[in-house]
């Protein structure tokens, strides 16, 4: 097939069009103009040169004619001359009057020299000249001028001219070629070279006279050859390579060639710069125009076309993304404009269709990729080309794993037998298949059962040689297995349960019963129970309840527990505890019940016995309690009366001591009075001790009534009273405000008063005294408060004795009190479930801490109190 010629770029066409269509002709015109100018100008120059050549030729002729005339005249004179003695004179006159001869001499008929002028001793008269060419020529009847040669007489270049004498001799003249050169030199100018050549090619005259001297033969020169052929004007290339323009002519005498020539450089040299200038200018302008049009073509035609071409290429190959809109830059060329416009329209249309196609393709791809069914497709090389996400999920092999694997089959079917089987199915099957199950081996090494279907045979898809879909049934199979296991377990449980199990339909008919139930109802076989109505196995007294329970179960779905007295098949009775559950079908519709029955006949008997024993026990407890109450009341009454009586006695003791001191003071000596004072004092102290004991006892017994207590205000209140009572004391008091706690208000007052009293008391010696009440950092579930003073303090070694009743660490004289306060405080705090402790050192002050549990975390002891979340949260939040 003949191949298409490869296309050429349009730019080149423009270039060639401009070059050949315009530049070349214009160059030709320029050349023709130059040529014509040169030719016409040349004509003038040539004419001028030819005139010169002719003039030179004429002067050469004149030279030769004159020389010949001189020779002939002299010969005539010699002929007429009778006296040979005058020969020398005539010759000498001839040579001197006419400078055309260097040497003149006469030879006789035998060729012997008769006379020579100027005389030469080497050539004396008698010298044999018969060997000379001109003598031979005469013998051979040849006349004319000889070739130039260096004269044997002068050594200068010469040519021989001779005339015959009547006596048979010859008059010989050696022409002065120098004289000829002088004739020619008269025409010399700085551009032209003029020279004369004889017919043998020897130079007779030339500006380079060496050439004449050296008998240079230029016969081979083109100018000589053509000159002798009659050319008047000619161009030729000289030996040195210069192009010459020559004019030639032949002399009449001697037939010599006169050449006048000049190199073209010399002739036209002066025209060349302006011509070159003009040519350069025209060329520059034209090249500028070419470039301008070239660029214009480039931007307005070629570039839009190239842009179109590129865009089309992008469109064709799809590389480079979306085909760009071609900017319509050129409005000068309608066709380009319309072409661009059409292209853009086409491009838009293609783009919108392409987008629709891509959308559709994307949707399809998304379906293929994301559908929860495995899709595997092979291309025509039977390589996997589609491996969707479900396939990836089911096998664990990514799309890349499969596509890049040299043998994906090997991956997913490690066993050759499996692969062979699959190949058989896939590649030799000549039809669709459905529901074929075979297992793939996943990346995790586990087998995954897949149910495969293919309609590739009936529904071929272009680009795919085979495709099939698979459903991963791994989960289903697991569920099946689990279900089977479950069923087995249930069966085992059913048959081996100790409790009786009955399946009963909604109508109450027993559907199935296990061995335990069979045993329970004393049947020979579980078939004996099947078909019986459940309700009939319950004693008539319980049947209504049983029916209610059944209704409840039907309604609620299950029955936790119920007890009936049942009838065995052999007429006996037994107690059963039962639980029931409603059985539902797939649609959650009730289909029956399952009852679990437990024989509780024995337990029932035991329970009855326990009930009886409990009743006896309660009776006895009640009796004992009432006895104890009586005893308590008696004890309290006793202690009260004892206390009261003791106080009465003590007051008597004290009173009478006072009377004795007042009334009988003078009857007693000092020692007696002192004893009495001691008695009185001891009695007072004992009374206060008894009061304290009573108080302590009360506190111990008192019922705690929780309420919100503001410890701050208790402290403020108490300290204000103290300040009023002891205005002389300088005490710096600092009470943190808002210390709320839930506790018994009156007991808390006792706590605070005791602690503050202590503080007040033990700071009596300090000026100024400092008492601080505040909250310490909260413990886990406790609120901790402190009372701090800068008083006497205590030795920490004895801190364990601080809270004992009637224990004092300080001298009773120094600090008043009975030593019961801290014991009370301890008791109250403990009763609230709290703790109390102290830190201090002697004379360094003391700090008493007590913590009370947060009430919010503890159930109220009474149950009628609202839990109050007070400072616990607030403290924890701090």
């Amino acid at each position, binding site marked *: 097939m003949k191949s298409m010629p490869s296309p050429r770029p349009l730019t080149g066409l423009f270039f060639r069009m401009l070059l050949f269509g315009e530049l070349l002709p214009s160059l030709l015109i320029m050349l023709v103009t130059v040529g014509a100018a040169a030719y016409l100008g040349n004509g003038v120059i040539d004419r001028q040169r030819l005139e010169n050549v002719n003039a030179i030729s004429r002067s050469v002729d004149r030279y030769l004619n004159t020389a010949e005339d001189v020779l002939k005249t002299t010969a005539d004179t010699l002929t007429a001359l009778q006296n040979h003695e005058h020969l020398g004179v005539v010759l000498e006159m001839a040579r001197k009057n006419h400078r055309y001869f260097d040497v003149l001499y006469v030879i006789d008929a035998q060729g012997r020299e008769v006379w020579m002028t100027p005389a030469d001793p080497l050539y*004396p008269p008698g010298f044999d000249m018969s060997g000379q060419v001109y003598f031979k020529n005469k013998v051979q009847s040849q006349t004319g001028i000889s*070739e130039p040669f260096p004269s*044997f007489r002068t050594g200068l270049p010469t040519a021989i001219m001779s005339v015959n004498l009547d006596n048979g001799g010859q008059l010989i003249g050696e022409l002065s070629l120098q004289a000829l050169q002088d004739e020619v030199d008269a025409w010399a100018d700085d551009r032209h070279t003029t020279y004369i050549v004889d017919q043998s090619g020897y130079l007779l005259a030339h500006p380079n006279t060496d050439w004449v001297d050296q008998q240079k033969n230029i016969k081979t020169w083109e100018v000589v050859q053509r000159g002798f052929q009659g050319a008047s004007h000619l161009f030729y290339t000289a030996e040195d390579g210069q192009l010459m323009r020559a004019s030639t002519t032949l002399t009449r005498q001697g037939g010599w060639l006169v050449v006048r020539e000049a190199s073209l450089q010399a002739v036209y040299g002066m025209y060349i710069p302006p011509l070159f200038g003009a040519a350069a200018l025209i060329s520059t302008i034209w090249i500028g125009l070419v470039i301008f049009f070239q660029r214009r073509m480039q931007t307005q035609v070629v570039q839009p076309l190239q842009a179109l071409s590129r865009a089309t290429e992008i469109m064709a190959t799809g590389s480079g993304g979306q085909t760009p809109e071609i900017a319509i830059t050129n409005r000068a060329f309608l066709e380009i404009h319309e072409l661009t416009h059409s292209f853009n329209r086409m491009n838009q249309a293609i783009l919108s269709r392409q987008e629709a196609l891509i959308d559709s393709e994307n949707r399809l791809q998304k379906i293929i990729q994301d559908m929860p069914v495995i899709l595997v497709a092979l291309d025509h090389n039977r390589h996997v080309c589609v491996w969707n996400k479900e396939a990836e999920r089911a096998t664990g092999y990514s799309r890349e794993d499969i596509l890049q694997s040299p043998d994906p089959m090997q991956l997913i079917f490690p066993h050759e037998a499996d692969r062979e089987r699959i190949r058989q199915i896939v590649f030799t099957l000549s039809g669709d298949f459905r529901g074929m199950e075979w297992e793939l081996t996943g990346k995790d090494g586990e087998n995954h059962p897949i149910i495969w279907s293919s309609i590739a045979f009936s529904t071929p898809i272009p680009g795919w040689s085979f495709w099939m879909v698979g459903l991963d049934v791994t989960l289903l199979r697991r569920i099946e297995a689990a279900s089977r296991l479950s069923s087995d377990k249930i069966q085992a449980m059913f048959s081996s349960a100790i409790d009786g199990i009955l399946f009963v339909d909604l109508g109450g008919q027993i559907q199935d019963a296990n061995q335990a139930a069979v045993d329970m109802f004393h049947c020979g076989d579980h078939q004996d129970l099947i078909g019986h109505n459940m309700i009939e196995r319950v004693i008539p007294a319980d049947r209504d309840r049983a029916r209610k329970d059944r209704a409840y179960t039907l309604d609620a779905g299950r029955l936790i527990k119920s007890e009936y007295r049942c009838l065995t098949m052999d007429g006996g009775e037994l107690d059963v505890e039962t639980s029931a559950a409603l059985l539902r079908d797939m649609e959650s519709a009730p289909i029956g019940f399952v009852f679990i029955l437990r024989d509780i006949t024995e337990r029932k008997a035991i329970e009855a016995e326990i009930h009886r024993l409990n009743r006896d026990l309660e009776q006895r407890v009640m009796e004992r309690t009432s006895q104890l109450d009586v005893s308590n009341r008696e004890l309290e009454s006793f202690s009260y009366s004892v206390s009261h009586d003791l106080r009465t006695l003590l007051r008597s003791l004290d009173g009478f001591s006072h009377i004795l001191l007042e009334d009988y003071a003078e009857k007693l000596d000092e020692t007696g009075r002192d004893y009495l004072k001691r008695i009185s004092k001891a009695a007072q102290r004992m009374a206060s001790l008894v009061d304290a004991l009573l108080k302590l006892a009360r506190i111990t017994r008192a019922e705690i009534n929780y309420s919100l207590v503001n410890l701050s205000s208790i402290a403020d209140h108490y300290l204000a009273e103290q300040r009023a009572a002891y205005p002389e004391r300088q005490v710096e008091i600092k009470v943190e405000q808002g210390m709320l706690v839930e506790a018994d208000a009156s007991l808390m007052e006792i706590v605070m008063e005791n602690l503050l009293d202590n503080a007040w008391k033990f700071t009596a010696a300090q000026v100024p005294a400092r008492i601080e009440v505040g909250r310490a950092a909260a413990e886990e579930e406790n609120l901790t408060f402190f009372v701090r003073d800068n008083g006497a303090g205590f030795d920490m070694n004895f801190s364990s004795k601080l809270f004992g009743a009637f224990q004092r660490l300080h001298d009773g004289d120094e600090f008043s009190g009975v030593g019961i306060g801290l014991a009370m405080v301890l008791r109250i705090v403990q009763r609230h479930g709290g703790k109390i402790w102290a830190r201090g050192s002697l004379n360094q002050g003391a700090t008493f801490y007590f913590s009370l549990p947060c009430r919010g975390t503890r159930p109220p002891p009474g149950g009628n109190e609202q839990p109050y979340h007070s400072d616990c949260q607030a403290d924890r939040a701090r």
Partner: protein
Amino acid sequence: MKNKCFFFSLAVIFLLVSCWPQPPILIGFAGQLSGKQSELGTQGRDGALLAVETINANGGVNGRRLQMLVEDDLGTPEGAAAVDQTLIDKKVVVIIGHMTSNATLGGLKVTEPAKMIMLSPTTSSSELTGLDDYFLRVQSDTGMMGRVMAEYAYSEDHLRTVACIYDIDNAAYTTSYLREFERVFTALGGKMTASVRFSAASNPTFSTYLPELRQDNPQALMIMASGLHTALIAQSVRMDGWQTPLIGVGWAMGNTLVENGGKAVEGMKISQTYDPQSKNPAMIDFQTRFKERFGHDPIFAATQSYETVLVLAAALEKTGGSSTGLREALLQIRNFPGLQGNLTMDPYGDVLRTNFILAVQDGQFVPIKQVDPEQP
């Protein structure tokens, strides 16, 4: 398409390169071209020129043209040295010349240090024989010619006494010639009655030498000078009425001798390696072409210059136009077909060729005896 363009361009380039004139091979020529004794020089130049023109017409040497640069050495040693230097400066590969022994000796002072090969068509001084130098020639040496002539004079012409006049302006030639002639001639039993020397440059009047020459009445006069001076001496001898046989030397053999000698030189015997009447077709062809080209007959100088250029061209073919190895190539010339017979270079660059004894008869040189070279 691109390939076509490429090959087309390649072809054009090749064409341009092949058509582009390769630089010519420059060869120099130096000889006496002006003055009374210029015949040897101009003939030598014209012979060489004809050879160059012939070679160039046949395609040159290895496709390169020969270009001959011609210089006039004025026939003097000083002139020779000057023009040889000029030619060396113009980068010629070889200098053909000079035409006389004295000029050659002058030139060698320049060419030897420059290792420029000088290839002389006519220099025959035996002073240059057997030297391992850059001077080579296609001429037999004066020793050979002197010996041949001495043997001929003694044996054939039965001469026993010979007087001699010789030009000391070309002493290298004449004295060596004379020495060999005298050695052989006296060895044979002959006797040199007189040896008179003169200087051509001083335009001597030869009649003044005749008494000395005629003393002892020698049987023959041997003239060792250029053609012109041989003719002038011969004329002088004859005008003196002395009809003794004349013996010339190869140097004188030319048109100048017979033109100026006229009847005086009739019968003169000359020893030269040249036979103008050779029937060798190459020689006849050369003579024809030379006359056609220059309008007159060639003399030995033209013929041997022509041969010299042919030999040179053969050697240049081997060196590719370069002067490198040219000497060796020239020395390897064996049995080169010259115009007069085969040429063979000896290891010193001297040629072995046939010698002739010629006699002038009716203004023509007629060979009367041929002496072939002794093969080394």
